């Protein structure tokens, strides 16, 4: 039996207000792994992360972390358990400096020593952030903001890090930096759940992957398996209704 289960989502129906976005979604993350959640725009990847964090309306189903049910926990309690978040679109605090953003990420740390320690680690991963630590975050470039978002998520030394499309809008060398950082972070013990549109990048660094469609998991498997899977391409291009080994293609495209 491989590593223990860290995160379990069981038959989730969730959304916002009265509108449900996820239907019967189930997935698992094992400790120490990088797991990726893929899918086209609007299928519910962000909603899945928000459900884990307690920021969406969970109508039915359960979320378990380390075996304990966290479905009804408010967001700040979820963070206390060791789950951190690098949100979609960076969502850094534009009115605070780089350093203040990082300190915000370290809100739950108890001692100044810990804070200094973790800060040091983030600075060594992202030297650019140290250079710009007094700068107002709103004035950083897109790539720097992404580094900040990731650095901020690392400040709490999380058990599980949730990232929402970190590569979006980044130049190739920055995308590589993101990938390398995630691999490094994972090596030192942090588990990662990576939501991505860039399937190729994600499957390169992840061990296991899930592909979403219309609010539920359509496909899952080891990253090597998924990389080779024709079905993924079709789901992304929207040429099929479902993939369950059989494909029913519509439209004029051949194979």
């Amino acid at each position: 039996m491989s590593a223990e289960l860290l995160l379990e989502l069981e038959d989730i129906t969730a959304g916002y207000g009265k509108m449900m976005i996820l239907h019967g979604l189930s997935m698992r993350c094992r400790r120490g792994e990088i797991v990726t959640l893929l899918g086209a725009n609007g299928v519910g990847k962000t909603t899945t992360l928000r459900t884990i964090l307690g920021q969406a309306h969970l109508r039915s189903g359960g979320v378990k972390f380390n075996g304990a049910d966290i479905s009804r926990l408010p967001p700040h309690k979820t963070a206390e358990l060791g789950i951190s978040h690098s949100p979609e679109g960076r969502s850094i605090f534009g009115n605070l400096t780089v350093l203040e953003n990082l300190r915000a990420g370290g809100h739950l740390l108890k001692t100044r020593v810990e804070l200094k320690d973790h800060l040091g680690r983030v600075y060594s991963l992202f030297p650019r952030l140290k250079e710009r630590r007094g700068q107002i975050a709103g004035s950083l470039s897109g790539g720097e903001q992404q580094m900040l978002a990731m650095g901020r998520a690392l400040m709490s030394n999380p058990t599980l890090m949730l990232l929402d499309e970190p590569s979006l809008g980044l130049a190739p060398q920055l995308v590589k930096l993101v990938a390398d950082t995630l691999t490094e972070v994972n090596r030192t013990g942090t588990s990662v759940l990576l939501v991505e549109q860039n399937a190729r990048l994600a499957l390169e660094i992840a061990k296991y992957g899930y592909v979403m469609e219309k609010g539920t998991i359509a496909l899952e498997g080891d990253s090597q398996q998924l990389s080779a899977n024709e079905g993924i391409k079709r789901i992304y291009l929207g040429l099929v209704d479902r993939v369950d080994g059989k494909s029913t293609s519509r439209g004029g495209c051949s194979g």
Partner: protein
Amino acid sequence: MTYFLQQMLNGISWGSILAMLGAGYTMTFGIIGLVNFAHGEVFMAGAFAAYFALYAAGLPFGVAVVIGILGAVVVGLFVERIAFKPVRGSGMITLFITSFAASIGLRTLFVMLFTDKAKPFVLPDFLDGAYILGDLWVFKRTIAIVVVLVVVGGLLMYLVKKTKTGIAMRAMSYDMQTAQSMGMNTEKIIILTFMIASALAGVAAIMWGVSYGRIRSSMGMMPVVDAFIASVIGGVGNVFGAIVGGLILGIGETLFVAYLPPELIGLRTLFVWIVLFIILIIKPSGLFRANIK
């Protein structure tokens, strides 16, 4: 020249009151988007609490100050629980309407119970008197007010800029949801913000009582507007900006009135509106950086 300096001192005194009111006002606006009309009544309640401590109970001035601040905090929290918490997330307009209702309700209640007649707020002995430099009268109470402004303002700035709580407050003002995912207990911090804002209003109330020697049920009606304008001048959610904004308004208004020809004296209330219109036309986001998205 002496006249100018004398009026400057008056202006700094009035400006300090507005600075304290504006700072509290901008804090609650920044953090939950609340245009808090009832802040004027929290201010008034603090003044009344101190007044009762001084006259009904004959307590020493220091104790009355503490009771005044506590009174403001209690009323501020009461209004938060009843009129703001239940509608949080319903949008700025709804929050404003409930604050409008709370403001009118509280004011009407106080007028019903205590009438709108002025009540005396006699200066304690150690604040009575002035230092006379040539023709200039530097009142002891003015010095006290400035000292309080500097001390309280300094503490407030330290809280907001350097402490973990202050960073959390500012982060929450910008993006509440992301702040929550960092583990910030937003409910607790919101309550703390209201307590601090109300305490600042309490401090402003004491300053007012000491400056003008009288309080009344409707005393909150005009200052709350000045506090609102001070926050706009300073940049929404920016505490330092509101303090500066309050001082600008206070000093400006006092000098405006001081140099206004006597026939036009009734136009004094227009000053703050002229400043507001200027700011809205030139730089609506305020002089300093706002703390909201």
